């Protein structure tokens, strides 16, 4: 008994030593770096001292010369603007210090009226935090605080939207880990913040937050490699993301066994099943992006495979912004594989493409943006849901829209809805 304890003790000690040795190596690196930094600083100090003594000597000469005001201006004697002068001024902009920390995010206030009730006010508040640990190592996190009226009760929601560490490995590759917005299609990762989304509600294929959809706007726990590179010119490029995440679980509240109703957030992992996926985006010209996404894996515990296939498109055609996405979710049981699929297409047009802000009141018309979105979902039953959303936005600032919308919903559980929302990205 005692000898077993001794062995374990020794083993632990060895492990600790090994860990310490790693740490020592790290520390040594840091110390060497600091040493180099001190040497550099010393060099700079010496240079500065030299300059100061020179200046000291030149004081009488400067005082005597009325032209001294042109000190460091690399303009030629007759005062031309030389390329060097312009470059120097551009470089001057570069000297400001960097901060390690920034809070940003968004908030919104809205009113919603639903055909058969309940109507009501609501708001959302999503503070985000950015830390710069070094040039290459960054942390980004965002909370989601809100109130949602649910029947006759008002509920407080506190949620973590994402929390991830990014390590910029090379110019074309970043390693990230933690809880990150899944790079599946475009809306979930890139377009859902209320100051970015051109309508107050998510597209019909996206669920969560009381919406019925195929996939939620969601973060998953895992690791991800992402990046991008240029192709044949500066403005044609591609981007990619490849990830491994904890497997989704079956929603726990469900009594009956509804297929395809997953909780993707699953943390901690309830089994050692994983999901993995990828998205590739392709921008042959700067105003077009076509993306393809895939995710597959085992549903935690059950051993059933699930598959997510998606495609997304963004196209800016002479100021008309088109967005479209398709998604298909399926689950492979032994004897069947039910699937749900859907898509949406959205077009919006900002009127400042037609009317310039002239300082006159009617210049404000340029801040108006009409939006139309059409979407459809077909589930395994099969039930069909269709939605036509019409919106009118007024951009108070570039990150602060006042959004008005009317949604015509038909099919299973479809009720028309009216929204008024003011959102602010800060």
């Amino acid at each position, binding site marked *: 008994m005692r000898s077993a304890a001794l062995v374990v003790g020794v083993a632990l000690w060895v492990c600790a030593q090994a860990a310490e040795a790693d740490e020592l190596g790290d520390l040594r690196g840091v110390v060497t770096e600091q040493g180099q930094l001190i040497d550099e600083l010393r060099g700079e100090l010496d240079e500065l001292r030299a300059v100061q003594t020179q200046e000291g000597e030149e004081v009488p000469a400067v005082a005597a010369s009325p032209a001294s005001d042109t000190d460091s201006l690399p303009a030629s004697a*007759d005062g031309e603007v030389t390329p060097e002068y312009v470059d120097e*001024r551009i470089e001057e902009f570069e000297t400001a210090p960097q901060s390690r920390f920034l809070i*940003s995010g968004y908030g919104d206030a809205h009113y919603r009226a639903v055909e058969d009730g309940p109507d009501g006010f609501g708001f959302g508040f999503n503070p985000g935090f950015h830390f710069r640990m070094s040039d290459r190592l*960054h942390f980004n996190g965002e909370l989601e605080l809100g109130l949602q009226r649910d029947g006759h009760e008002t509920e407080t929601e506190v949620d973590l939207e994402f929390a991830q560490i990014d390590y910029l490995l090379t110019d074309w590759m970043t390693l990230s880990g933690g809880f990150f917005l899944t790079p599946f299609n475009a809306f979930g990762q*890139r377009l859902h913040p209320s100051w970015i989304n051109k309508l107050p509600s998510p597209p019909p294929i996206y669920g969560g937050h009381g919406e019925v959809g195929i996939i939620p706007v969601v973060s998953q726990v895992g690791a991800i490699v992402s990046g991008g590179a240029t192709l044949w010119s500066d403005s044609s490029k591609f*981007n990619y993301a490849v990830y491994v995440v904890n497997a989704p679980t079956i929603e726990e509240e469900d009594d009956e066994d509804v297929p395809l109703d997953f909780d993707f957030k699953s943390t901690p992992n309830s089994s050692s099943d994983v999901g993995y996926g990828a998205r590739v985006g392709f921008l042959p010209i700067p105003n077009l992006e076509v993306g393809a996404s895939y995710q597959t894996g085992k549903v935690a515990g059950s051993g059933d495979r699930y598959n997510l296939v998606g495609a997304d498109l963004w196209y800016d055609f002479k100021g008309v912004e088109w967005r479209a996405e398709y998604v298909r979710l399926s689950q492979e049981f032994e004897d069947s594989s039910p699937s749900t699929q859907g898509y949406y297409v959205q077009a919006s047009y900002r009127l400042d493409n037609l009317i310039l802000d002239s300082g006159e009141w009617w210049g404000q018309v340029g801040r108006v943006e009409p939006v139309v979105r059409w979407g459809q979902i077909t589930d395994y039953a099969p039930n069909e849901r269709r939605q036509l959303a019409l919106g009118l936005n007024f951009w108070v600032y570039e990150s602060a829209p006042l959004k008005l919308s009317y949604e015509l919903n038909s099919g299973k559980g479809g009720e028309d809805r009216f929204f008024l929302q003011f959102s602010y990205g800060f």
Partner: protein
Amino acid sequence: MLRLRRPNASLVLRALLVVVLAATSAAANEAEKAPPDLARGARLYSDNCGRCHNARGPAEYSDAHWPLIVTHMRVIAGLPGEQARTIEAFLRASNNPPPPPRRLGRLAAVVPAAGLSGSELIERYGCRGCHVIGDAGGSIGPSLRGLFERRQADWIRVQIQTPREHNAKTLMPLYGLSDAETSAILEALRAAR
């Protein structure tokens, strides 16, 4: 259990470390300092920064904060790092407060724009990143074709030198241009039509 697993884990970690070190040393001279190419920065900004959301103006954040945001955007959008740095340099060069009056006065008085022509200045400051001038340019700002038919020369001068006088939230950079540079640009714009 723990002891059995440990060598595997540390092996993986070590392999990862080797990759990381190799990649970082390869990337070490990526960040070499050269004067930022504002023309390219403006074009990349207008190519990339209005894709997911409305483009956010350079003046919204300080030099201290833009690097944090641009890095976040680089990761979300999968932007190549070199392009992200060029955009960052453009943003940091374009959010400056007006130069102190002494400096502006001195520049205005001392410096006639003879070294660089108006069209060279337009290139250097990257006006085409956001405006169509002549037959090429970006679309974040209005096309400058027909500019002189719709605006007075004095108004244009103010717009170029201190765009925030016309729109406090403008996306247009404040370059702190001298009177002479402004005149040269104005003439080049008039010639380009």
